[in-house]
């Protein structure tokens, strides 16, 4: 028998602002990056505009990420992004098994999300990889490409534009893949749009008095 639901605040206004700014920035970067990599043959002013827009939103993304890093470090909330060994193995396997089998059998979610523990095991592992590998790869290669416009020798010291650009684009493909998966995973909440609403309003529902499942 299901427990009664209660409305709980999952995300602070700053966290939502951070998320949506980052979402817009990533979307614009992906779109302009694709345009720059595969421009139309007819040309025009679009290419130059795309470069400037791409650079501007890259700055927004980096600034936003930097502020978030400061916020999470200063508040100590950074810990919730650090996966534990059990997140990686036992909990992670349970989590994966749910998406592979349980979700089709109508089983209840194996983990109860709370405002304090709102990241699930596989989320933690994925975000850890994104924030520590993919995002730095994109930021460093992107920044070096930008700096190369003013100090070409800097890019040369890191393998030159052909290598930096290829790595940047490889990271972009992975980022887009993550974006697709991330958006899809929002539909695996209690309802299709429940998680999306939570990120928009900050508030979500959870069963009110249940203990965390073993």
């Amino acid at each position, binding site marked *: 028998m299901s427990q009664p639901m209660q409305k709980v605040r999952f995300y602070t206004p700053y966290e939502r602002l951070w998320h949506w700014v980052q979402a817009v920035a990533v979307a614009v970067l992906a779109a302009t990056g694709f345009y*720059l990599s595969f*421009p139309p043959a007819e040309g025009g002013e679009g290419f*130059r505009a795309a470069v*400037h827009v791409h650079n501007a939103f890259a700055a927004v993304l980096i600034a936003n990420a930097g502020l978030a890093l400061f916020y999470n470090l200063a508040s100590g909330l950074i810990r919730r992004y650090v996966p534990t060994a059990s997140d990686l193995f036992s909990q992670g396997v349970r989590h994966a098994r749910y998406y592979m089998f349980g979700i089709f059998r109508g089983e209840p979610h194996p983990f109860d999300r709370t405002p304090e523990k709102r990241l699930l095991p596989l989320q933690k592992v994925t975000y850890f990889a994104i924030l520590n590998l993919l995002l730095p790869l994109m930021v460093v290669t992107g920044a070096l490409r930008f700096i190369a416009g003013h100090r*070409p020798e800097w890019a040369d010291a890191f393998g030159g*534009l052909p290598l930096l650009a290829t*790595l940047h*684009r*490889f990271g972009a493909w992975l980022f887009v*893949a993550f974006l697709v998966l991330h958006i899809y995973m929002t539909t695996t909440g209690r309802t299709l749009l429940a998680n999306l609403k939570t990120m928009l309003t900050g508030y979500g529902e959870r069963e009110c008095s249940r203990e965390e499942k073993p």
Partner: protein
Amino acid sequence: MSGAVLILLGLILANPAAADTAPAQALDPPAVTIRNLSPAPPPPSPSMHPDVILLDAQGRIAPANGTPLSLRKSCGACHDVEFIEKNNYHAQAGLDEQSDAGRAPSGRPWDTGPGIFGRFDPFLGRALTPPGEEPLDLGSADWIRLFAARHVGGGPAERSRSHGGILGSPPAGVADPDGPSLDDKTGERTTWDWKKSGTVELNCLLCHLRRPDNMQRIRAIQRGEFAWASTAILTGTGLAVPREEGYAWNTERIPPDGAVSATTLGLGHARSDNCRQCHGRACRCTDPVVFQGGRDNWQAEASGSVFSPGRMSQSGMNLAGKESLSSPWDIHAERLLSCNQCHYAPNNPAYDRGGLAGPGVRHLAFDARRARESEYLFRPDHNLVKGDTAQGTVGRRFFGTMRDCRDCHRAEETHEFLPFPKTHFAALECTACHVPRLFPPTRRVTDWTMLEPDRKPRVEHAGVQGAVDDPLSLLTGQVPALLPRRAADESVRLEPQLLHTAWYWVAGEPPRPVRLRDLERALFDGDRYHGDVLAALDRDRDGSLSHDELVLDTPARVEAVVRRLQALGYRTPRIAGEIQPFTVAHGVGHPDSAQRDCAACHGPAGRMCQPHPLAEAAPAGAPPQPVADAGLMLPGPIVPTPAGGLALRPQRCPAGFYVMGAQRLHWMDWLGILALAGTLGGVVLHSGLRAFVALRRKRAGGAA
């Protein structure tokens, strides 16, 4: 200029012997030139130069003795002509850089130097024969006559490449190595009479006379009257007049002491019009630019150079979109720059800043010591500063001594619109964007493997619809190929290049070019093509060879000519092909006409991705390769086109350059695409299963 042409024409008509003795190739103009239609220059301004005493080679008064003028003696009275001649790559023409055959930077097995003396010119199809070799194509005297229009004298026109002394004066007991020559009429080997002809000394007046009579100078040289060349150039001043043999002094205008004022001579510093005597149009004239037949502008046909202030829209030519071409042919000319303000004498105190080319003392950033004006005027260094182009192969040690665009322009301050400006500046020559299109029709192909009925090679031009020398032909212009080239300082940049592809016959081992005269004998039987050649090439069987049939495009057709050459005694004749790039260094238009559309390069239709046509038709065999001393790095293979021609097909990342939007997918891209596709597939599968299960559950619930 047209007057001079008429004079020359009249002289040739009046003197058939002169026309006969001139080598056929030397008189053949390139198909395209740009002629200066401006009125005669204004009278020279008063000069501070002292009177010049006209002396002959023995130091006597030349007009009084009726002897040829010697500039070595006359100018040498005040200037160190010996120094000027030796420090002068225009005069040396590669004589001071001679090597054994096959060791020249070009990589051609018969080249003996990097300059026009010793470096094969595929436009002319003649090769300077290495010393002591047979058969003879060009001996020293033949070379002097052939290159009369392009060489200022001195260097190899005066000194022997074998013994270093004056031509015709071999060491005692030694046969003259410079004696062998080819008789123009018979093609037989003869011995040149240097005592009769004299030598061609460095002609100071060609560059320092206000109105040099270059046509007379060329005429004298081509007639073998080498010693008279310096006198001939004064014909335009009225001080000398041509005779049936040699020249006569107009003693009525010359005082007995032979002293002539600098104003009378029109002496002065070298002007652009002087450069034009050999390099083509270079003037400050404002009259319409017109392309027309002549041989005073071979450089325009090769590299598309037009250094003129005239507006393209006011050109006399049928340019495509002419009314919108408001830019001058070269904005530097419009802004009153002349050739010698960029290509100056390196020790000219007015230009020598003592820092750009590297000070003599390593720890000095600026060397304040300068030659005094008197020292400079006594010994002006004539190794004029020069840029670094694929075609300027002579005097390689002076490459890059010229101030380039960045030394005069502050590009960063005017390119705010350009994303990543320094990346562009580091990767591209300024001309890549500032000469986006060239309108002079330039030669793209010279095919010496078959000859036209008039014994000329089959040629193709780029950027023109119709006959190249017809003013009614539409000049569509062309976009130069943007190709990586390794410069003398080892840097690699993308430069606009015009590619000239040449094919010609070589034979023997080590290979040597088949002589043009022998090729004519192989291909022709009298005035008609030889029967074997006709049978192999006459596709429509009409008994004659049309222009389109003059291509050895199948092994069978090649073999037909091979057999004819073998019959003349040539061993293993085969076709050699080469690509000579010509770096576009002039023709910079108004900034508004510069390339600002990113898609011109950054996109699938960009210059970096599109195949670049090399030839509309090509002989069968291995594709041509760039000459070794051009520094060109082909960014892809040369492939045949469906129409039977050749094209350069660029690949990704030429020479390490990354051109955003123009790159093909890297394997890492494919890996990323695979990850994305896998994710999308997983999402579709997962969501589909969820929907299916939910639907089934809903149906099951409904049924219950």
